[in-house]
C-alpha cells in the first residue's frame, strides 16, 4: 500500500473548498469562517489549520518559510517544511524577505512584510470571547450583534485584580472597527504589526475548524482603555547578546556558569543575518 502523492497533499477539490473559505474571510476581515478542516498527517493542535491554508495556496513558484515561536529549525517548523517540501518540491528559505509564503506559529517576523507576501498564522483558540463564554452558539451571536462589552469587561477586571491587563500573548484586537479577533498567541509586541500591514495575513485553526483574515492595509487595534493604554512587552533596554540589536522581541536565557540572564533575538533568521 503506497501513498499517492498529489501536489501539495490535497486533492484539488479540497484545496478549492479551503480557498473559498479564505475568500470569504478576506471579504469579512476578522470574521471566523467555518471550514471542513481535514485530518492531516500531523497532530491537531500542531499547526494543521496553518498547514491547510499553506497547502491550499502553495504553487510551484512559491518560496516557503516556516517559523515556530521565532525559530526556523524548531520541531514544528521542521516537520511542516518536510511535509510541504515532500509533496510540492518547492524552494524553502529562512530569509523573510525571500519568502512569498510564510507560515508561523506565534510570531510575526521582525523584517517588515510586503504586498507580495502572505503570512499564515497557526491558531490554537480562534474565539477571542471563549474565556468569557464557553458556548459557540452564544459567542456567534455576540459577534453578530457586535456585543463586546464582555471582552472589555474582562480586561477591566484584569486591571482591578492585577493592576494591569494581564493577557500575555493573544491580546484581543478590533479589526476595521467591526470584529474582535484573536490574533493567535503572538506576543503583544507583534500586535502593532498587524495594523495596516501590506501583506495578506491569514489565520487558520485546524482543530477548531475556522479560517479568518486580516487583508492588506486593514486597521487593527489592540483592545485597551484611554487611561490604561495597550502596552507591549518591555525588555528594559536589553539587547541581543549575539548581534547587539535592541527593539526586537528577545528570548531570555540563563547562563548556568555565571548565573546571569542574557538575551538573544527570538527571530533566529533576523538575528543570524545581523550576527558579526
Amino acid at each position, binding site marked *: *500500500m503506497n501513498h*499517492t502523492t498529489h501536489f501539495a*497533499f490535497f*486533492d484539488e477539490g479540497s484545496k478549492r473548498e479551503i480557498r473559498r473559505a479564505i475568500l470569504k474571510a478576506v471579504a469579512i476581515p476578522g470574521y471566523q469562517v*467555518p471550514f*471542513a*478542516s*481535514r*485530518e*492531516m*498527517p500531523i*497532530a*491537531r*493542535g*500542531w499547526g*494543521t489549520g496553518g498547514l491547510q491554508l499553506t497547502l491550499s495556496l502553495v504553487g510551484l513558484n512559491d518560496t516557503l518559510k516556516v517559523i*515556530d*515561536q*521565532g*525559530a526556523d*529549525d*524548531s*520541531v*514544528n517548523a*521542521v*516537520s511542516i517544511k518536510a511535509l510541504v517540501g515532500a509533496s510540492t518540491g518547492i524552494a524553502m528559505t529562512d530569509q523573510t524577505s525571500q519568502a512569498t509564503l510564510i507560515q508561523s*506559529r*506565534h*510570531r510575526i517576523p521582525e523584517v517588515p512584510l510586503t504586498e507580495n507576501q502572505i503570512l499564515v498564522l497557526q491558531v*490554537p483558540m480562534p474565539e477571542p470571547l471563549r474565556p468569557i463564554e*464557553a*458556548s*459557540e*452558539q452564544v459567542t456567534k451571536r455576540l459577534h453578530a450583534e457586535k456585543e463586546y462589552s464582555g471582552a472589555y469587561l474582562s480586561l477591566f477586571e484584569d486591571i482591578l485584580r*492585577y*493592576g*494591569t*491587563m*494581564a*493577557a*500575555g*500573548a493573544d491580546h484581543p484586537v478590533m479589526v476595521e472597527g467591526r470584529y474582535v479577533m484573536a490574533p493567535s*498567541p*503572538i*506576543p503583544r*509586541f507583534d500586535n502593532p504589526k498587524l495594523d495596516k500591514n501590506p501583506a495578506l495575513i491569514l489565520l487558520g485553526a485546524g*482543530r477548531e*475548524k475556522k479560517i479568518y483574515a486580516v487583508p492588506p492595509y486593514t486597521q487593527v487595534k489592540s483592545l485597551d482603555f484611554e487611561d490604561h493604554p495597550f502596552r507591549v*512587552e*518591555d525588555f528594559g533596554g536589553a539587547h541581543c*547578546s*549575539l548581534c547587539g540589536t535592541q527593539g526586537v*522581541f528577545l*528570548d*531570555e*536565557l*540563563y547562563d548556568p*556558569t555565571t548565573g546571569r540572564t542574557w538575551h*538573544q533575538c*527570538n527571530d533566529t533568521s533576523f538575528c543570524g543575518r545581523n550576527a558579526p
Partner: protein
Amino acid sequence: MAYVAVRGGQAAIEASIHRLGWQRARGLTVLGVVACREGLQALVDQVMSEASLYDEDTAALAIKQAEGSPEEAVFLLRAHRSTLARKYYSRAMGGESLRLERRISACFKDIPGGQILGSSRDYTHRLLNGALVEETLDDLERLVATFEETVDGIPLPSTDRLPKVTEYLRQEGLLARPVPDLSPPGDVTKQYLTFPARRSERLQTLTRGQTGAVSALGYASMRGYGSVHPTVSELRVGLMPVTVPDPLGGSDAGQDEDYYVGEIRVTEVESLIPVAVPRGPGVFDLRFDLGYGCCFGQNETKTIAMSILDQCLETPEEPYPTHDEEFVLSHIDAVETTGFLSHLKLPHYVTFQAKLDALRHQASREKP
C-alpha cells in the same frame, strides 16, 4: 563566551525518529499484520470505530505501526481516510437487517427469537490464563475442532431479521412510535458542526468518539450528573449488509437496482430511559424515551454509553453537562483531544515570555 540557545533542531528530530524505529525493532520479533488482525480483534474494532473507517486490514496495519497505541492508530487511519475519495453514500441501514451473532435484552427474559449470547467476555472470570504463554498452533486447531464438533448437528435458531424488542413495546402502546426523519443526514466529516446540531450529526460524532471519553460521559450521566438509568432494551452484534443506489440510475432509481457492496460488523443498542413528563401542577406521566447507539465492530460498552448520551442530548433542558451538546460533542474526538493535549509539548517560549512580562510588570507596580 555566552551559552548559545540550542539550534540544529532538524538533525535532532531526525535522530529521534530514527530511535523510534529502533525501539520498535529492538525486540527482534516481527509482529505480522495478520496476527494483529486475527489476534487483536477487540483493538481492531475499537480503532475502526474511533477512526470511522471500516477496514480490518488497514486498521491492523495502523495498530502494528502504532505499536498498539489506540490513539496513534486512530490518528494514522484518520489521516489516511482524509485522502480517500468518497464516491457513494449507502442506503440508510437499520439494525433490523442485521445477520445476528449476538442479541440480548435486559427488559424481558423471553423475547421473540430468543436471547442469543454469541461470543462475549461478559460470562468469563477475569483470571489470567497462564496456558496462553506457551500456546501453539496445535492448541488453536484443537480448540477450533472441538467447537465445530460440538455445534455440528445442533439446530440453530434463525438469526435473520428478528423483530426488535421495542417493536413489542410499541404494539402495546408503551413506547411512542417515532416519526421518521427522512431528511438527508448531515456529514460531520465534510461540514463544520454547528450548534444546535442535528441528531444525525450528534450520532455521527458520538459513534466516532473516543471509547474512553464516550464511556466516561455515559457513566457520569448514570451516576448522578444526568440521573439517567437506562434499561438495555436490546443489544445486537451482527453483520449489516451495505447497499448503494445505482450510481447511473438517477435520483429515482429503485431499491431493486441497488448494488450490494458487502457487510460490516456493528454493535447496536437501544436503551429505554424512564422520564417523568409534567401533565399538570404536581402531576406527572411516566414515559419511556429511547436512546440509540451504533458503532463499528463489537464495541459494547461504548455503544451502551452512546445510547445514553443520545437520550441526554435529546433532552437539553436538564441542567447537567452531559445534556449540553457543545460540552459532549466538542470534547470526545480522539484526534482532537490527543492533538491539543500533545501540543503542550511544543515550545511555548514566546507565549511564556509574554506571560512572564505581564507578571513582572505587575510585580514592579506593586513595589513601594
